[in-house]
């Protein structure tokens, strides 16, 4: 048990790939064995990740916990170094939760080349988990890249008609970003010894040799020159912004989402995109505070464009999946808006909204996948009046639509509300632009719901659609539960985020939290109370 507790991160991260190795020895004709095994691996993977929530010390949620450190490539100063703080805890658990749901949703949808499919899914799961636990930049980069290969195959083999195009676009786009990211990492790597040589305190803690230790990079942040930070931020920006994706780097996303199989889309939306935002949170902001501040106008502008542009394009889509994909662009714009408000509310909201987006959009892709499995089309014009035939489906869809547009009592509201508070504290116009995105979001989602679920069931092909089966319901119930949990009682989540966010703000804007302007509006720790109170207040008005 002690071993398990010390090495829990390693076990959680490599559990899926260990399962994959066993799977490789199974007979590829024995599809049901492979399906059962893959589901068993990811579900047990989720279960063994749960102790993290209970063992995590929320009092010190800004400290790295469950840290394991071992030499890896000593001549380069690369270490196997894992650990999580409150931010990575949430994203890690989101990943272990979404994994099983995505795998479970593929049960009937995937019937060709089943063995390879599940092998790639499991490999992908390990790659994503590795990204969120790495505290060594080299190791982070390895996981970051490794995960591209299985995703490429998932889109390229099991995707839709234009799968090859979408798959290669996804791979190339992300690779261009990540190689530039690598250059930024290398620049930091070679700068570290110079700074450590002049600062005995840093040298004593992290040594004087070049290192990839992320915590060491956090420590040298104040000593990096503004020009250096500017350039490295730019390199990181390309890497992470493509992943998020921020406008104008988003064009790979609709293609990848539309062509990918349902499970691929779910993972892509729920987890992969978060890797980009996580990169900003973990690396860009704390390592390059001056660079981050210098780029705030650009980041905010791009976020606002993404919010409004994504929403407008989503509105015009004739294809359900493409609509949800563009809504992702819009929602991720929200996440970035909150993040680069660079105050506690904005950051808290941004992170919570990442989780929310994972839940809502993941669920929406599952929902679209369910109808696609039955009708083999996603064209909105082909559907209509489905609520008559599929009441359970319509209910689930309704809940998730509401969650996506930020209805109070559901998760989306908490995130959007907190982000708007953060944006408002900085600039009224940011909040107004963000608010218009919410309105547009409500418009396209409700319109989508109306066109597909309400009206007359006049298309003969839709007359005999069966409602959701237990397996499909099983993939969605956890997400519905999460949506209500965050919507009704988000305090535990904010408890994990509060301290890391405060630490982040202190790093980026030293003295901001003690500043006079903040004492008037929101004292320290306010985001928890504010957000915690929000749904209650909203509940009363209903």
């Amino acid at each position, binding site marked *: 048990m002690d071993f398990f507790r010390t090495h829990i991160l390693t076990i959680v991260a490599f559990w899926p790939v260990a399962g994959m190795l066993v799977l490789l020895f199974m007979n590829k004709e024995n599809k049901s064995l492979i399906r059962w095994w893959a589901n068993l691996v990811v579900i047990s993977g989720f279960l063994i990740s749960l102790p993290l929530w209970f063992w995590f010390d929320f009092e010190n949620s800004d400290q790295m916990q469950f840290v394991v450190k071992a030499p890896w490539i000593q001549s380069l100063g690369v270490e196997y170094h894992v650990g999580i703080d409150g931010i990575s805890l949430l994203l890690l658990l989101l990943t272990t939760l979404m994994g099983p749901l995505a795998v479970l949703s593929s049960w009937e949808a995937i019937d060709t080349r089943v063995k390879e499919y599940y092998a790639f899914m499991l490999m992908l799961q390990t790659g994503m988990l590795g990204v969120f636990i790495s505290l060594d930049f080299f190791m982070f980069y390895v996981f970051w890249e490794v995960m591209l290969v299985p995703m490429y195959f998932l889109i390229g083999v099991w995707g839709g008609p234009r799968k090859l195009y979408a798959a290669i676009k996804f*791979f190339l786009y992300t690779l261009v970003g990540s*190689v530039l990211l690598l250059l930024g990492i290398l620049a930091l790597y070679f700068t570290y010894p110079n700074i450590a040589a002049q600062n005995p305190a840093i040298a004593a803690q992290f040594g004087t040799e070049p290192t990839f230790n992320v915590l060491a990079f956090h420590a040298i942040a104040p000593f990096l020159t503004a020009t250096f930070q500017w350039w490295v931020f730019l390199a990181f920006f390309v890497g992470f912004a493509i992943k998020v994706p921020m406008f104008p780097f988003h064009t790979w996303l609709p293609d990848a989402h539309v062509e990918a199989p349902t499970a691929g889309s779910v993972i892509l939306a729920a987890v992969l995109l978060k890797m980009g935002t996580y990169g900003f949170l973990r690396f860009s902001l704390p390592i390059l505070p001056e660079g981050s501040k210098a780029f705030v106008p650009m980041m905010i502008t791009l976020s606002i464009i993404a919010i409004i542009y994504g929403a407008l394009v989503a509105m015009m889509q004739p294809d359900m999946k493409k609509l949800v994909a563009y809504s992702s662009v819009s929602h991720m714009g929200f996440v970035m808006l909150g993040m680069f408000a660079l105050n506690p509310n904005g950051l808290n909201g941004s992170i919570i909204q990442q989780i929310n987006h994972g839940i809502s959009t993941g669920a929406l892709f599952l929902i679209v996948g369910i109808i696609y499995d039955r009708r083999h089309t996603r064209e909105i014009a082909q559907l209509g009046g489905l609520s008559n035939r599929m009441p359970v489906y319509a209910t689930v869809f309704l809940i998730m639509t509401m969650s996506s547009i930020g209805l109070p009592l559901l998760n989306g509201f908490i995130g959007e509300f907190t982000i708007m508070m953060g944006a408002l504290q900085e600039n009224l116009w940011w909040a107004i632009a963000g608010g218009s995105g919410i309105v547009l979001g409500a418009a396209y989602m409700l319109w989508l719901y109306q066109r597909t679920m309400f009206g007359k069931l006049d298309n003969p092909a839709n007359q005999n659609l069966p409602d959701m089966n237990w397996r499909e319901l099983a993939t969605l119930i956890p997400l519905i539960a999460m949506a209500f949990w965050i919507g009704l009682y988000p305090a535990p989540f904010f408890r994990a985020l509060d301290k890391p966010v405060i630490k982040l703000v202190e790093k980026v804007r030293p003295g901001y939290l003690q500043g006079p302007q903040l004492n008037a509006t929101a004292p320290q720790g306010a985001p928890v109370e504010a957000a915690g109170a929000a749904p209650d207040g909203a509940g009363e008005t209903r």
Partner: protein
Amino acid sequence: MEQFFKLQDLGAIAPEIYLLLFGMILLIFDLLVKDKRVLGLIALAGIGMSGAFLFNLHGVDVEAYGGLLKVDQFAWFFKLIFLIAAALSIAISMRYLDIEREHHGEYYALILLAAMGMMFMAGAADLVTLYIGLETMAIGTYVLVGFLRSNQRSNEAALKYFLLGAFSSAILLYGMSLLYGVAGSTRFADIADALSRRPVDDPISLTALITLSAGMFFKIAAVPFHQWTPDAYEGAPTSITAFMSVAVKAASFAMLVRVFMGAIYPLRPEWTAILAAVSVLTMTIGNIAAITQSNIKRLLAYSSISHAGYVLIGLIAGNDTGMIAIPMYLLIYTFTNLGAWAIVVALRKRDVIGEHIDEMNGLFFRHPVAAILMLIFLLSLAGIPPTAGFIAKYFLFAAAIETGHNVLAVIAVLNAAVSLYFYLRIVVAMFMRDATEKTGLVLSPGVVTAMAVAFIFTMWIGLYPDPFIAMARQAVIVAY
């Protein structure tokens, strides 16, 4: 003057001597033995002997033959690369030559002798040694390229390669003669000494630099001297293409490092500018040309051109990281590229040429293991972790960033991303298209061994490169 030839000098070149000896033995046995595969095994034994003596020389750092030849760790590391490349090339040749109906003993003898020439190139400390080594290697390779006597493409390739090779050697010689004129000596150390005392922008030094580099760019197939490569690579027997793309290339780089970091080091400000331009052109044009190829051999030929462009970054950086990067890159490239070529060789059957990308279609369904190995080799060539190719590229990019060549680094990484595009074309054919060709692969024991070795090292260096980095670190040569 010290005694020119000492008996212990023989010990210093024992690996070379054994290659020569086994080359001779092979020529004699060719007349006696019916089953030519025995000759392949003899050649492998010769490489084994040579390797054993090479391991004996690990850590030795002497000058032999009165300073004509250096036996140092730099040469040691490259000799190791040559032996590995020769051994793996021979392993993939045995069955292949039967299929081509051109199985003759000279083939193996020529590989061994060419490898011997390469070893002298890597150890050269004198223009004369360098040139003789170079020609030994080159003449052997010309013959090997044209080894498929009844095949028109092979003949054409050999003639092209020979003419352009002779031409470039002449240019190289011209530069060497100018250097001799400047220094009055053929020793690298004397030349460097003389050059450092010349005025800046001295026209003779610059002419020497330009002709010398042009000759060498031919040998490493750098743009704009690369046009011979695709034709020669396409026409040559595939096993020889594999050999050329790794061993000949590595030897040419050893020569480049010896000359640029030794003899003409005083001209470094001038040659870094030339190399930077050539490096950018080589990477970019190699990659762009590769995108449009539909013949695997031509595709890999262009990809090998672009790889030469990356390696030049190590020389441009010129610091320790850069000097580690070059041998590391070439070692990794040897394993990875030979692995990929082994699979191309396995596609060749009596009635199937196995060179068009379409012939890879659905390889995964026909032979999943081979397809997965090919995937790993291609990802390694593209530099995706956790394969060895990433470590190779890592060192080059790190060297560029460390020495402040940021623009070069950006161009290089973007090129790495572009290169993925055409490697993925092969992946698409293997995994995402239906099989058009139903027959299996020709998996002789030699090919299987070569693939396995290439795979093991590609993953080993990718996941735990420490021992190899340590070895490459010893091989760093101190600039003049």
